[in-house]
């Protein structure tokens, strides 16, 4: 697999956003522990044992710094800490903690390198370990890239173990008994005579001693929680209306705000007339902001109604205004000048393609809004030089820094309180809406302001999934796939996103080819090239990012070649696969779906595989052709994650990922006209409903030594598995999403 010698210098810099001049110093910083952000707020009798465990006389709080967007991140992080801390999940409170450099995410940067996750060569491993230092040095605290579990797997268990051993040392000092005589269970240290010393009572003593850092993690045979079904800590609150989200934040004296900014994203506001809005009931103030205008009122509806009543003159879009121009830009990007990467180039593709007439195909994938169900919102109070922010975000430290810059204070004066999020799918990796809310709050005379975007305003500024195109050329020989040449063109997601965050973006954008160049197949002549299209509409990371489009391209074209070769889609993938855990995933999904067993007339299966975020995932979709359209009956999914932390949450994540993949593939698209997104609510931006939802059978495999995430990997195989099933059922090859353009679904 290793083709490291062919990696261009320019490409290698990709993951090293911050490395330039920083590695040596970074290594020094890396060895020094980050300051514990909990230490500042401690009172008498309280202890912050590691940045993840806060013990006060009235209870134990576990800090879960990766944002809970609905994926169960808070619960899973708490579970990993609690496993080693010997405390039950119903005995602890959970808190996202303050934004802090201590909560850096190294797993994210490790996967940003131009090494396939299956590449375990010394060079790849060295590069990955080098990435840890600058990321820790910069304190990049991001939730994303399916990294919460890979990043926390060791870190959080160690945090729990350090806290446990420190509490035992404190108990030893209190009782005079040797540590070796002490046990821990249920949030207490147990003495040999059965006496329980609750952790809460030991906090004061524990705070006086150095943490015990020489700890051994438990053997899997001793785990109480990991791998077992547990009750997610937010389930009851979310079944009773009690769960508070950002949109529910209510503060004394709070004003309710609505906002309209230029729907031609990034465009200016040339002028406005708010004379009618000013007179409307409940309106407190009309407030111009960068690129738009907001209303402060005494109620969300009155604010939204008033902002709608403002007549606004919008400036032009700073990008090509029409959808047709965006497609043309992609069509014209398959050139040497625009080639961004060629990380896969095995055999002699050109010679093989020249030797016969190749099979050719072109694929397209549209822009897609993230559209989490909770519209974007933020509550801010700016008073006495101090800023408080309540919002659901994946990037709390960027929010802190960027709002500080808007308001003109130091980041230390900005306090970010991360709330529960009603979904995200990547939408909360952006903070422009929070910055606008800060502009509103600056003009509210110290009163708190809650900005709630209308659904239409939110979807007009969604920074959607990338638009993308692929062109495949390939040949078959002797009943097998011989040559596979795939070019993928899209604008750079990372450039668009990093620019808004004020971060540099160097080198190739690996997301242009993610989920395609890094697949574990040994096709004799195998090439994947990325082409960077010019910047079009601003775009952002959308659940599974580059792989969301590239999995569809790669697996559809591979399926076309396999059919052309007259081979079986599962057998041929197994024959080509050169990565043992991935083979097992394919074999498993074959067994689960009874692949090869005959089906009644009008019914067929399709298979697809994608290795993304280090997780190999295979899906078999079963469809029936009915008189009124295609019915998706069943989906079998197998995924290899090293460890299934919680089987209930795992299944829920996989089912959700499959529905995400299928629902958008059949129904959804965002298109631009006059520089504006045309779909701004769920009547035109359509998604799967229950009547279209198949049965989804899930199996998690634990054969690999590395622990991987599951939030995103089930997405990329869903669309191609469906398209491949529809081809098997009808002979019609769907090459453009959404499929509803070509076919009805029931």
């Amino acid at each position, binding site marked *: 697999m290793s083709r490291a010698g062919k990696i261009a210098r320019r490409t290698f810099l990709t993951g090293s956003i911050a490395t330039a001049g920083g590695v040596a110093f970074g290594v020094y910083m890396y060895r020094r522990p980050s300051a514990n952000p909990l230490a500042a707020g401690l009172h008498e009798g309280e202890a912050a044992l590691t940045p993840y465990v806060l013990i006060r006389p009235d209870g134990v709080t576990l800090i879960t710094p990766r944002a809970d967007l*609905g994926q169960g991140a808070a619960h899973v992080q708490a579970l990993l800490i609690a496993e080693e801390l010997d405390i039950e999940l119903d005995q602890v409170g959970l808190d996202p903690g303050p934004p802090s450099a201590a909560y850096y995410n190294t797993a994210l940067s490790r996967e940003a390198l131009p090494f396939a996750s299956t590449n375990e060569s010394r060079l790849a491993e060295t590069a990955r370990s080098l990435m840890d230092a600058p990321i820790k040095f910069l304190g990049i605290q991001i939730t994303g890239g399916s990294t919460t579990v890979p990043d926390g797997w060791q870190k959080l268990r160690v945090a729990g173990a350090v806290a446990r051993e420190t509490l035992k040392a404190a108990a030893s000092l209190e009782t005079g008994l040797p540590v070796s005589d002490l046990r821990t269970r249920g949030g207490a240290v147990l003495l040999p005579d059965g006496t329980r010393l609750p952790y809460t009572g030991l906090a004061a003593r524990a705070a006086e001693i150095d943490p015990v850092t020489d700890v051994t993690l438990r053997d899997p045979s001793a785990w109480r929680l990991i791998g077992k079904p547990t009750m997610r800590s937010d*389930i009851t609150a*979310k*079944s009773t*209306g009690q769960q508070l989200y950002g949109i529910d934040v209510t503060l004394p004296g709070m004003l309710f705000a609505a906002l309209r900014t230029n729907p031609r994203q990034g465009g200016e506001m040339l002028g406005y007339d708010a004379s009618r809005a000013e007179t409307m009931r409940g309106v407190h103030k009309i407030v111009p902001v960068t690129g738009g205008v907001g209303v402060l009122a005494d109620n969300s509806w009155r604010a939204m109604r008033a902002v709608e009543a403002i007549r606004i003159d919008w400036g032009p879009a700073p990008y090509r205004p029409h959808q047709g121009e965006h497609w043309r830009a992609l069509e014209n990007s398959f050139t040497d000048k625009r080639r961004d990467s060629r990380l896969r180039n095995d055999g002699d593709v050109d010679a093989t393609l020249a030797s016969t007439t190749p099979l050719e195909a072109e694929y397209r994938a549209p822009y897609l809004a993230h559209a*989490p169900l909770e519209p974007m919102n933020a509550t801010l109070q700016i008073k006495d030089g101090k800023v408080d922010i309540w919002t659901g975000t994946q990037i709390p430290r960027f929010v802190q820094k960027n709002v500080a810059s808007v308001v003109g204070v130091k980041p230390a004066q900005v306090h970010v309180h991360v709330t529960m999020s009603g*979904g995200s799918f990547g939408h909360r990796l952006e903070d422009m809406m929070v910055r606008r809310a800060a502009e509103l709050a600056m003009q509210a005379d110290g009163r708190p302001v809650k900005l709630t975007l209308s659904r239409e305003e939110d979807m007009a500024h969604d920074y959607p999934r990338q638009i993308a195109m692929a062109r495949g050329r390939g040949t078959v020989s002797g009943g097998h796939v011989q040559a596979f040449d795939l070019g993928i063109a899209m604008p750079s997601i990372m450039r668009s996103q990093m620019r808004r965050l004020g971060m540099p973006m160097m080198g190739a954008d690996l997301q242009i080819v993610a989920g395609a160049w890094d697949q574990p197949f040994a096709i004799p002549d195998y090439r994947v090239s990325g082409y960077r299209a010019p910047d079009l509409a601003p775009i952002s990371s959308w659940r599974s990012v580059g792989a969301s489009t590239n999995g569809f391209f790669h697996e559809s074209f591979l399926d076309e070649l396999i059919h052309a070769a007259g081979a079986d889609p599962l057998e041929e993938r197994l024959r080509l696969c050169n990565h043992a855990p991935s083979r097992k995933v394919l074999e498993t999904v074959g067994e689960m779906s009874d692949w090869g067993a005959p089906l009644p007339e009008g019914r067929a299966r399709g298979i697809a595989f994608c290795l993304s975020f280090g997780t190999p995932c295979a899906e078999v979709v079963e469809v029936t052709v009915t008189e009124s359209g295609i019915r998706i009956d069943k989906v079998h999914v197998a995924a290899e994650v090293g460890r299934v932390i919680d089987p209930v949450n795992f299944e829920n994540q996989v089912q*959700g*990922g499959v529905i995400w993949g299928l629902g958008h593939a059949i129904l959804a698209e965002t298109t631009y006209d006059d520089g504006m997104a045309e779909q701004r609510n769920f009547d035109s931006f359509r998604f799967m409903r229950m009547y279209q939802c198949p049965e989804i059978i899930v199996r998690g495999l634990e054969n690999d030594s590395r622990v991987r995430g599951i939030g995103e990997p089930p997405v990329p195989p869903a669309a191609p598995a469906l398209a491949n099933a529809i081809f098997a059922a009808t002979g019609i090859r769907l090459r453009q999403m959404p499929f509803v353009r070509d076919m009805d679904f029931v």
Partner: protein
Amino acid sequence: MKLTVDGTEHELDIETDMPLLWVLRDELGLTGVKYGCGIAECGACMVHIDGQAVHSCQTLVGDVWGEVTTIHGLAAPGTLHAVQAAWVKHQVAQCGYCQSGQIMQAAALLAQTPDPTDQEIDDAMSMNLCRCGTYPRIRAAVRTAARTLQEGTQ
């Protein structure tokens, strides 16, 4: 204007054309009722009026014809309605934002159709959108709740 919500009568000085959703959320602080789309497409705002599931975002407060029940008043304080208990048992929620509306829809369905067919469950629950993809668990939870409610009445 008088409005009875979850058994409590309120006297309100508000516009009659304010959608019930915003009265519940911003005037009465019942934030379990969610704003998702404002156009009766997503169902996150669902409440009952005299037992019937309605979109509170498209019901003007002046048009409310009976007693309003929200997710906060579906069960007696400190208890769970059978539908909520099934939602907990099956761990339906991911982000959970749509679930208040899903639960109100399911409770209304089972009140009117105690033993729904799979088709009837799909038809009723397709009024509600879930972006996280909890549909398989919602299906299972509705069936469990139907069984619980039927056993309770036998």
